């Protein structure tokens, strides 16, 4: 599948971030690597608190004040208006520069909660136009027309009237569409969707996902999805990065992650979600809960919850082992010296069933 001419848009290397809190330093991001190529979609999955949002906020230059970037780089490549390419390290640029050249204009973000992410005191029309007026000094009328077009594009009926509405007059689904319209307003190259549908119910979720996908196709932009819903991932992603406690623990193409997961954590995630065919008496679970990042732990952060943990997990954090050119996982189970461990049988069944189903569909086409 890898395309030789893939043009890299974003490259996060060894990102390491600590938050100063009254309880002590929280080591939230501990060496994250992410690659994103033009026109593709990467999904960042992981439990709450694993650092998905923080990573992306770092790329947007909107980290909280108490954050400290210890090391790493976030290389972002884009084209100037005249077509000349440019690559910058976002971590080296100051906030002002990022606001002017990156935010909204080149990287846009859709936030998790549409209920709280719109300014309650401003009409949505204004909020959509604001970015255009700000970045491009566009005439008002033109910005208005574009905003109108965007609203229609994201599927809001009666757009003209909605322009004058306030956020609280819209339903959750509509608000999320508005947020997407805002994100698209300045034609960004990269769209970051931070759990864009968790707050919505399934029917609306499906619509929103379709919408983002079609827009992506149309404009050829790259998208990063942050989510912990594997159903969503399955729908939208080309590549998946599984994150746990501030690290990427497994990365691969969507098919590799779903049909050939290697990391025990990924196994847990996959099997914890019942699909419509799950009929077992009990669901497979990942025991325990995500680690408290206040406390540094030697070795693999997942070990305390890992049924398949090895002795070495307590000493050394596993490196990324390569499984294929696109598929890596950070677990000692992949070391040749490790005992052969199979994924849990329930999951194995399920993966087999899913593969079969998938094959059937692919063949049918």
């Amino acid at each position: 599948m890898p395309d030789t001419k893939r043009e890299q848009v974003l490259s996060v290397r060894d990102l390491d971030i600590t938050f100063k809190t009254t309880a002590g330093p929280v080591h939230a991001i501990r060496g994250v690597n992410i690659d994103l190529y033009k026109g593709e979609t990467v999904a960042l999955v992981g439990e709450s608190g694993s650092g998905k949002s923080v990573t992306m906020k770092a790329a947007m230059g909107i980290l909280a004040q108490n954050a400290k970037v210890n090391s790493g780089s976030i290389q972002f490549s884009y084209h100037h208006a005249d077509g000349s390419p440019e690559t910058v390290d976002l971590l080296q640029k100051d906030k002002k520069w990022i606001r002017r050249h990156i935010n909204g204009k080149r990287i846009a973000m859709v936030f998790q909660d549409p209920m709280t992410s719109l300014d309650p005191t401003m009409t949505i029309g204004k909020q959509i136009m604001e970015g255009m007026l700000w970045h491009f000094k566009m005439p008002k009328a033109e910005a208005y027309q574009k905003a109108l077009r965007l609203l229609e594009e994201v599927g809001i009926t009666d757009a003209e009237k909605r322009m004058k509405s306030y956020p609280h007059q819209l339903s959750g689904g509509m608000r999320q569409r508005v947020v997407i319209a805002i994100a698209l307003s300045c034609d960004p190259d990269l769209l970051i969707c931070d759990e864009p549908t968790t707050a919505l119910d399934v029917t609306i979720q499906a619509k929103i996902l379709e919408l983002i996908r079609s827009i992506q196709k149309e404009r050829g932009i790259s998208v990063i999805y942050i989510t912990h819903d594997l159903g969503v991932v399955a729908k939208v992603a080309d590549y998946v990065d599984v994150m746990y406690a501030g690290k990427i623990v497994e990365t691969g193409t969507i098919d590799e992650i779903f049909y050939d997961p290697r990391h025990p954590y990924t196994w847990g995630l996959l099997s914890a979600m019942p699909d419509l065919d799950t009929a077992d008496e009990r669901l497979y679970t990942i025991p325990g809960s995500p680690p408290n990042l206040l406390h540094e732990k030697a070795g693999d952060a997942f070990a305390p919850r890992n049924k398949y943990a090895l002795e070495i997990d307590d000493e050394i954090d596993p490196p990324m082992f390569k499984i294929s050119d696109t598929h890596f996982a950070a677990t000692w189970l992949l070391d040749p010296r490790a005992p052969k461990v199979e994924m849990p049988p329930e999951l194995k069944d399920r993966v087999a069933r899913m593969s079969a189903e998938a094959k059937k569909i692919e063949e049918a086409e």
Partner: protein
Amino acid sequence: MKKYTLKRILTSLFTLLAILLVLFILMQLMPGSPFNDEKLTADMRAALYAKYGLDQPIYIQFFRYVGNMLRGDLGVSYNISKNTPISQLIQSRLPISIQIGGMAVTLGALVGLVLGIIAALKRDTIFDTIATIISVIGVSVPSYVFALALSYTFGFRLRWFPMLFSAKDVLGSSVLPSVSLSMFTMASIARFTRSEMIEVLDSDYMLLAESKGISGPALIFRHALRNALIPIITVLAPLIVDLMTGSLVVEKIFAIPGVGSLLVTAIQSNDYNVVIGLSFIYSAMYIGIMLVVDLLYGIIDPRIRLAKGDD
């Protein structure tokens, strides 16, 4: 919205009437009488009571008062400015209090807002500390100390401003009183703005605005301040009433013919009509400002507006 406004105004009027009644009862409870000068005989006092109708039952006095009030007649002063219609006293004194109070509120609110915004934006830096220190001192030092110190320094020593209020130089002679009055407002607004702004700055919509690339004053004024404004207005409203209705201390020090000192004198000399009249003005302003604030909420925050409107 219109209907709501109307309803709100009606409730306010009703509240005012209730306040008036309470004031009347309070006056009745007040020990002593307006006419107990050493030199007055009992007969004389009775004559005075009869003259002003104070010998009648309270409810009759009350209804008569309300009736007169509707005709714009607030009665006359009994002893601090004998037989002067209260409305005339208020007419000559209230504008001065409002003017000085208004200047103080404006000054205090503006400086307070700026200080608070700076403190919030530069949280945990030296600016924050300085703003905090200024605001803490502002709420910690009594205003008469400020007033006298200002008067001594800028009035007496430096002679930049007049020490006493003068109708001939209203603006110049209002500077020192306004400044000393504004300290407390400034300090409280600064503190409040800081905490509200911090809260707003941490909100999702601010993140979204920032992620759109908005920065600088546009971010602060268009998004942050407007959202922080509601609680700030809530704090500011009673301060406005307090300042606009005069401050005894500052009026005394700067010899300002305002309503604050008038009220105190009236209370101390049992001049019922003046007390009721001035208290009523205070109440009316209080209720009025609360009304304005309530309606302002609606203007600032569409959620409130539309929740209240019946459309």
